[in-house]
């Protein structure tokens, strides 16, 4: 459960989850929505995948991510979004730059 809290504590990861609500997207498509480096995005994806909130599937050369959240996890994320939970000090992937 703590991995879920860690995953949704970061606004970038919450935005990734919000984007994936619409439809499954490739890593490139998702990265286009953020002004962060690809390794940083990749680290965010890893955190989300390890928390069991997204699933990754290979499609040719690209990796497609899709949402894999339970109802309570979605509600928790909605709550975090509403109250503006931002624990970025603890949440970003270790040793990664946040912007280009």
């Amino acid at each position, binding site marked *: 459960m703590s991995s879920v809290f860690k995953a949704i504590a970061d606004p970038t990861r919450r935005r990734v989850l919000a984007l994936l609500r619409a439809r*499954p997207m490739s890593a490139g498509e998702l990265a286009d929505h953020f002004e962060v480096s690809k390794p940083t995005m990749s680290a965010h994806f890893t955190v989300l995948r390890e928390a069991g909130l997204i699933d990754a599937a290979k499609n040719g050369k690209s990796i497609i991510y899709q949402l894999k*959240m339970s*109802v309570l*996890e979605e509600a928790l994320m909605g709550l975090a979004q509403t109250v503006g939970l931002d624990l970025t000090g603890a949440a970003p992937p270790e040793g990664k730059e946040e912007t280009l």
Partner: protein
Amino acid sequence: MTRGRIALAAALIAVALVEALAITLVILVPEKRAYWLIAGLTMPILWSGAELMRRNDDSLRLAVAYAATIMAVCEAFAIARGLGVIAPDDESFALRFLGIACGLVIVFYANLAPKKAACVDPASPDAGRKQAMQRYSGWVLFLAGLANTAIWALAPIKQAALWSMVPIAAALGLIALHIVSSRAAPGERA
């Protein structure tokens, strides 16, 4: 030790306690058929639970743990009624408990439905529509399960059985409507 194994072990301990009580009562009051029945019914639950502990299927273990707990509590109610702890003609408490337990089963599985059903091929063109459908179904059934549980917990017991069906029927109707409408306009949903 996995979550399913812990849950099943706890449920089997509860079942074993009921079984021990039932066997004791069979010895003490052999003329009461209910105790024989409870002791006989509980034995296969214990055996199948113990067998399941050795297998590698955690989701099945969780489901069986829940079912075993419900059965153990029902049998405990039956024993308590036989011993006169609960008035013999008062079935409302046991009925209410069973209703709440069933409502919680719906909540539990509806909560996991969007997560477990996330096996849509993400590269398929209508993956977005299918994913939206799964999320919608999960949410609607989750809320219906909560409403069902609340009705069993709070409504007058004589009306609870009928009223508790309303949110479930409404949820199934909403899901059916959503399926029909999303098939009619697949492009808009994806």
